[in-house]
């Protein structure tokens, strides 16, 4: 079954805000920023299509496509039959034939039926044809947990995509990045797996979406694909994170400050391509690093980050690079998920274990 934004589970970490209430200053939720990015792109480029399950009249179970059918018509934003391989395969054909399809996989685990299409075609078609066929497809996936969702609704599936050459894998963590990165993804000539942390959908920032649009359309938004950002500067250790774990990492850094430790937090934003430069510059400065990610740790993106950092910054490291990740178990049921998710406490424990001499 499927939970939607209207009445999320009682135990949600982030309660949805009443979207209708006009705020004193311009604020927007993560969800609304994505919605605006889609609308603005569709307005600007008639080749952009949005389709998937329930994305039409309903506006998607998370309302990310709210209003798009009404505004752009059923030919541009539409529901498909219930079949993910079908959605993905049709997107491949549309992209071959001049369109820029954006598809929504309703939840992370429901992208798995499309896995063959993603791995054997979306990722490989450009290479197979020596670039004669480019596939400007964006695969939007509401992903990861922390929303009290039932089984199959909370998988962190980024490793499957990040391991697959040919895919570009993004995971925004802020409202601004949600807007800019989705627009950048749709404009990108290659297929992008766009991971939307479900638990951040209702997070809010003071941003003016109209201003973001102008910034982007004026070419003033700096590139984010392949560019990590220092989300909080610090000097003693580096937390490397992305997507749903970034706010947790920031909270941990704030808590550490109270204990007198200055922690730098890096928000990767782009998992593939990976920004070695920003990450390594930070670790070389701090000499200590912890990778924070929600997916099970084994053979994960977190493993990759640890591997890269120790390969490249070995002599700067005062301690092994540690990981705070999900356990190597299936994502737990709602009442147990808080035992699973990386928490501030667990991150601070890892930081404590970075072999401090003092």
């Amino acid at each position, binding site marked *: *079954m499927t939970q939607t934004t209207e009445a999320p589970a*009682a135990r949600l970490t982030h309660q949805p805000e009443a979207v209708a209430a006009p705020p004193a200053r311009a604020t927007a939720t993560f969800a609304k920023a994505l919605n605006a990015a889609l609308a603005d792109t569709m307005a600007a480029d008639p080749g952009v299509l949005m389709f998937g399950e329930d994305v039409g009249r309903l506006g998607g179970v998370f309302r990310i496509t709210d209003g798009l059918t009404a505004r752009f018509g059923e030919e541009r934003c539409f529901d498909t039959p219930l*079949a993910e391989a079908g959605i993905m395969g049709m997107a491949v054909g549309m992209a071959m034939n001049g369109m820029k399809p954006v598809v929504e996989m309703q939840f992370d685990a429901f992208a798995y039926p499309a896995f063959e299409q993603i791995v054997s075609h979306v990722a490989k078609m450009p290479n197979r044809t020596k670039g004669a066929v480019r596939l400007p497809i964006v695969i939007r996936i509401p992903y990861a947990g922390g929303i009290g969702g039932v089984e199959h609704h909370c998988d962190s599936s980024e490793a499957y995509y990040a391991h697959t050459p040919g895919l570009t894998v993004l995971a925004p963590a802020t409202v601004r990045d949600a807007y800019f990165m989705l627009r950048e993804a749709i404009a990108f000539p290659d297929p992008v797996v766009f991971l939307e942390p479900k638990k951040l959908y209702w997070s809010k920032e003071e941003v003016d979406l109209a201003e973001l649009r102008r910034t982007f359309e004026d070419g003033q938004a700096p590139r984010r694909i392949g560019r990590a950002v220092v989300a909080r500067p610090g000097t003693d250790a580096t937390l490397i994170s992305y997507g749903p774990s970034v706010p947790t990492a920031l909270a941990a850094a704030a808590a550490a400050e109270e204990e007198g430790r200055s922690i730098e937090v890096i928000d990767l934003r782009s998992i593939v391509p990976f920004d070695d430069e920003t990450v390594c510059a930070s670790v070389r400065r701090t000499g200590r690093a912890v990778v924070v990610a929600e997916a099970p740790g084994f053979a994960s993106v977190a493993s990759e980050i640890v591997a890269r950092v120790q390969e490249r910054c070995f002599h700067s490291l005062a301690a092994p690079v540690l990981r705070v990740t999900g356990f190597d178990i299936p994502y737990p049921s709602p009442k147990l998920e808080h035992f699973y998710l990386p928490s501030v406490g667990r991150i601070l424990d890892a930081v404590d274990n970075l072999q401090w001499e003092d």
Partner: protein
Amino acid sequence: MSTAINGGRGSMMGGASGGTPPAGAGALLPSAEPVQLVGPDGQHVHDDRYPLPDGEQLLRAYGCLVAGRRINDQANALVRQGRMAVYPSSHGQEACQVAAALVLGDEDWLFPTYRDTVAVITKGVDPLQVLTLLRGDWHGGYDPHEHRVATQATPLATQLLHAVGVAHAAKLRGESTVVLAMCGDGATSEGDFHEALNFAAVFHVPVVFFIQNNEFAISVPLKNQTVAPSLAHKAIGYGMPGERVDGNDLAALLAVLGAAVNRARDGGGPSLIEAHTYRMQAHTNADDATRYRSADDVERWVPRDPILRMRTYLRALTLLGDVGERAFADEADAIATAIRKGLNTEVEVNPAELFEYVYTEKTTQLREQAQQLREELARDAAADAASVDSASDDVEHQGKGDQR
């Protein structure tokens, strides 16, 4: 408390004669109109192929129908009260739910979806165990082997293949087990639906595929799902018979599903039954159905309610009187009360269990991780004990989760 609302009895339809399985390619096509044996007005409609189940059977099934509706109502109430996260109601589809379970014997397997809670309970599973999933303590709350009811499948259509495998294994061992596998109209679009029907037909295994066509897949209406003459028309493409049935007609469902089960048990192979019904409520409590359909659309289905017509029919034949009605209502109340009580009792969750069932024997890695969590929780508990202020209740723990 006996939780099986059919009292744990075996198949009501066992041995009952149903329609004769048709022979020849054309005969694989469904009838032009869905089979109906009792109309919305409560009158018997004659059908050459399907005799009306006898009054005794119908009466018993009617009791299950009343209980089924009560379970839906109770579950909805519990969601409103915050005792369950979400409930996909089968309100309006209870005749399908009840019939799917009642045509099966104890030796038969049921493969339900998330929406088929009432069918699962009717087949004998303890309601409280069923609702574990929705309460959020674990992904599945009952032992599938106990009543031969698979876990309620979320990934659409995937369970249909499991059903084929269970039937195939039974057939290889020469057992007489039949498997009834349920799915929705939306799920028929998935590749797994196709593969399941084809495997079942090629291996000629005893599976009855039962589609509850309730006209919606969340917000997507049937016309966006298929333009086939009917979903039952898909059967011929696999070489199995397809049949359509009024999904709000308990009698027709018992007859048609019963015949299909008998046919499968007698070595006649798989078949596909499409029930025409309607999802009267939102997809789940979290859904806002007003965004994609009007109250009028829903209103049209009210007179076709499955309980209403069966009640009219049974009362007209004086098989059902006030005393009987009261008895059924009391039975339903008892189940609802048990559910309410059970769900209002807080259940302890044990984090150690997270690592317990991933493998039969824990890997070294999971032993380490379990140990890590144990130590962390012990540290937290010690810290909590030390500081009166920072006592972490459960909600705190989850809501912020971030307190060290």
